[in-house]
């Protein structure tokens, strides 16, 4: 096994244990791992961005291929930097205006088309289906998203939730029933979202534990076992130190 893999296993294992120590309580080991994570990810992003944007997409095409038109977006981008000079900060508004204008122009029609029109189209799909030879049919399968039963449930859900958020009419009488139905649909949606969130968080834990089990192998030098012991020992020493300091301070 290559030395890079072994070093990587030791670093990953150590940092995982350091982060997990937060479950016991906040401590310097957790702080070390947390700050390292932030530092490394920011450093990586800066280096990758510099290499891809400045070198690959700006410097090389201009200098090596003579694509001078690239100087226009570069100039617009440079206007952003005038934010750092208070007297010239107003110039950056031109760059922002360009970005907001282009961004809105691109995003608004596409978003309306994709999320509003398409979703309305799906919500108001026919509740009954006309099948050639069979006439008008109604499908009951809850497992089939396109079934007539699911179309009705979605229609009721959408209408009742929209009514729940309609505040111009007091929710009394039949309106109260509709609004309550909307609340029930919302609760089911929140429950489903929370269930998926729990599943996702557990998956992350499974991912880390799978790696820790893999790194307990002797081919890596058993970093999981050594570093687990070291982390527990450090926590015990820190707990003892803090408990011996407390009476003195008192």
């Amino acid at each position: 096994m290559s030395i890079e893999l072994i070093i990587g296993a030791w670093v990953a294992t150590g940092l995982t244990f350091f982060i997990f120590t937060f479950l016991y309580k906040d401590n310097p080991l957790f702080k070390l791992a947390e700050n390292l994570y932030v530092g490394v990810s920011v450093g990586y992003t800066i280096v990758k961005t510099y290499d891809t944007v400045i070198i690959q997409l700006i410097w090389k095409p201009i200098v090596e291929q003579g694509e001078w038109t690239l100087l226009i977006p570069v100039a617009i981008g440079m206007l952003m930097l005038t934010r750092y000079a208070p007297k010239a900060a107003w110039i950056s508004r031109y760059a922002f205006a360009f970005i907001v204008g282009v961004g809105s122009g691109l995003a608004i029609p596409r978003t309306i088309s994709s999320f509003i029109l398409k979703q309305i189209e799906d919500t108001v799909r026919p509740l009954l289906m006309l099948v050639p030879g069979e006439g008008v049919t109604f499908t009951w399968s809850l497992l089939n998203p396109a079934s007539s039963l699911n179309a009705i449930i979605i229609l009721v859900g959408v209408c009742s939730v929209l009514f729940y958020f309609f505040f111009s009419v007091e929710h009394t009488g039949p309106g109260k029933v509709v609004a309550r139905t909307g609340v029930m649909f919302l609760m089911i949606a929140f429950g489903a979202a929370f269930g998926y969130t729990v599943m996702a968080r557990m998956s992350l834990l499974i991912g880390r534990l799978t790696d820790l089990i893999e790194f307990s192998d002797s081919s890596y030098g058993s970093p999981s076992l050594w570093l687990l012991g070291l982390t527990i020992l450090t926590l015990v020493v820190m707990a003892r130190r803090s408990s011996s300091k407390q009476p003195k301070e008192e």
Partner: protein
Amino acid sequence: MSFTERMLKIDRRIIFLVIGLCTLIPLLYPVGLPIKISQEVRGVYDHIESLPEGATFLLSLDFDPASKPELHPQSISLLRHAFRKNLRVIALTLWVSGTGMADQVVTQVAREMGKENGKDYVFLGWSPGGTAVIINMGQDLYGAFPADYNGKPTKGLPVLQGVQSLRDVNYAVSLGAGRPGVEEWYVFGRDKYKFELGGGCTGVMAPGLYPLLRSGQINGLIGGLRGAAEYEILIDQKGKAVAGMDAQSATHLAIIVLVIMCNLFYFSSRSRARQQGQAGA
């Protein structure tokens, strides 16, 4: 203090320990609980199966190491499937922090399947702009990525023969952990340039993407580690996702039991407090 009150004020570290053990024990001693294939995961699999040899398959790995446990197994399974079908694979990422990891997974699976860089697959790397990159690729793929991740010019690469823009892509899958991700690939890619799109995502994002699936805006969805496990079963190459399913089931069971117990203790303590109040009056 009664047993119920003690349980309601239990040290949360004991709960962490219980969850930790429920995860660790099934990983060490797997039971092999059955995994049922869902329709949404099958949607992605069936579409890749239906593609002819040499068709272009675009895989956008829009995640970073923070979502690795869920999306890394998905990407491995999809790449194995695509390479096994002899598709031409175009991989990229819209997340700068995931560039190195994306390169590693593409290179690793390609080497495992005996595929050649530039001929059978290409990793385009990362380009700034997020959604603008998708639009740019829709107009001119070579303008968005003049060179691949290794700095080799993309024009003239055998794997990109006949591919000018996203319109020439037969199937695209975005494995997204946030934005830009599956939604952006639909809004700025599929809706405009009319190619088939499938999605893969973290568990947190899955409920938000189901409306796109139902309306047919995406033709399949691989959700979280569970989706990855289903895909591993479909391609008959069990990996880390299948191995994690027992642990996932055990932790879910533990959480359900904890929720039920917590509610029982809560109602029990409330009724006792009410009885004591009545007795006091």
